[in-house]
């Protein structure tokens, strides 16, 4: 999320109101931020179900720990991202054993997007064929992204998918900025390498 000053101000105000016990403010925060959290979780885990569960966990944690958040010291989105990232790392550690058998379940979780023909027509994409090809490609890239090692993956996701700047990423990941840059580069190269290999296998 581009940290332009308007939205930062707005979020800070919301957090402040929320801390004063305004239920409606909390609702707005959830409304504003849940897409971002869900997106992060989905990109990192590659599973819609996991992403949904994790998003709920993140907001539960935020709700409980909101008092510890200091508005003066940091931006709320960065704090939220840090929380999300920590939960993702926990989740990754917990499910590492299952990762090896992941391919068994491939196909049980439907691909992203509308799955019935009727809904595919209903989506307002001009070209169904192009739409379909895009989806295939996106699924391919997502699959490759899951094979990138988690340290590189999180850096790449935060930079290229969430447009955070290096300083913020360094803050979230608690590593120096130089390392952040190095990880982003290595993550990108790794992804390109994986996808080149896939392309060779497909062709």
């Amino acid at each position: 999320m581009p940290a332009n000053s308007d939205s930062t101000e707005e979020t800070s105000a919301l957090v402040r109101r929320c801390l004063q016990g305004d239920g409606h403010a909390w609702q707005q925060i959830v409304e504003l931020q849940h897409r971002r959290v869900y997106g992060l979780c989905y990109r990192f885990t590659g599973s819609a179900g996991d992403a949904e569960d994790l998003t709920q966990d993140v907001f539960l944690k935020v709700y409980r720990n909101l008092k510890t958040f200091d508005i003066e010291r940091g931006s709320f989105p960065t704090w939220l991202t840090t929380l999300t990232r920590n939960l993702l790392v926990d989740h990754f550690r917990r499910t590492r054993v299952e990762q090896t058998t992941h391919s068994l379940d491939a196909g049980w979780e439907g691909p992203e997007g509308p799955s019935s023909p009727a809904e595919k027509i209903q989506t307002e994409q001009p070209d169904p064929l192009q739409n379909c090809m895009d989806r295939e490609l996106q699924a391919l890239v997502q699959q490759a992204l899951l094979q990138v090692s988690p340290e590189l993956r999180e850096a790449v996701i935060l930079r290229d998918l969430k447009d955070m700047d290096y300083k913020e990423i360094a803050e979230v990941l608690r590593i120096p900025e130089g390392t952040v840059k190095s990880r982003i580069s290595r993550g990108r190269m790794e992804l390109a390498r994986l996808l080149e290999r896939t392309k060779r296998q497909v062709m």
Partner: protein
Amino acid sequence: MKDHGQFGDRPAGKSANVPSDKLDCAAVELLWVEAAEGSLAPTEAEQVRAHTSECASCREKISRARKGREWLLVLKMEPLSPPSDLVAKILARTTGASETSHLPRWSMPKIPAEIDSRIADRYSLPGYSFPDSETAPVPGETVGDNRTLSRDGIPSTPVWQRPSVVFLRKTVFEPRMALVAAMAFFSISLTLNLVGVKLTRFRAADLEPQAMRRAVTRQYAQANARVVHYYENLRIVYEVESRVHQLRQAADSVQAPEKTGYPQGKRDPGASRDGQGHRGDRDHQSSRDGLHRERMEVTPVKDQNAQQNRSTPVEPAPIFSGPTIDASFNAQPISPGQNVVETVQPRFVSTVFSEFVSRPASQASSRLLKIARFSVQERNSA
């Protein structure tokens, strides 16, 4: 990617080749990120360009990183929408269900039972598959998901989307978990069945070692009894045993004068034979003697015949009923001292053999063969 390591692993020669006013590889590596994004400051871009024109390795890496970023941009284009009820779920979990009731947008109106059942009917029609919005988020706003459902003006959460069901589906009903559970269940129930444990009649007292041993013994005895019962009920076994018995009776009655009194001392023939070395068949012997005694009690006439035969051993009366053996006895009168079984043997064996051939081989038990063979050996040694 061990070849694209951190800053230290570059060959020293390469950076030495680069003129000092230009950047070396380590310095350029710090700029890879921006170079791939195209967000370098003009002077830095110029420096990187100068370097990559000479350094093929850096050029390739930057172009690869750029490609990787392009792939990621493909992913970024993808509209990624969380499930429409996610916000409601989050709010329910954080602030409690009570607060969601006064939120008009995400509140779940109570559905009249009649409409509920109508929806259930519609979605339980065979062949109708409703896209699972759990796994397939619909692009666009919340309206997209409810479009199909709210034709009747009823937004609702289908059963399979409720958190508890989703949790079950993701853990217990996962295919491999279900498979494992089923396998475990079947193997356990099979084992229990085999051991004879009936869970409905299971008591804590059954776990005592004494009770367990008793149960096992009972199982074994039952199984054993069943097998023995089956075996003894085979017709061929019965027939052959009775023939052999009759033959032996006849032989004894022929040779009786040389031995001790046959009807009086029932153990005498067995004892004398045992003395000659057929110890292994002692149990057969005694059981057959028992049978013999029983028959004698039932048919005293035959016993009298045997008595008579003993006193006049020259003409043994044929006491068997089998036509083949009868015929053989009638054709060849047996003289005293002649071995009955040897005389009868060819016919007898052929009778038994034909019995065998006319039946499935599985019924020809080894015990049967043993009996036949034993009686012949017995006669020979006698």
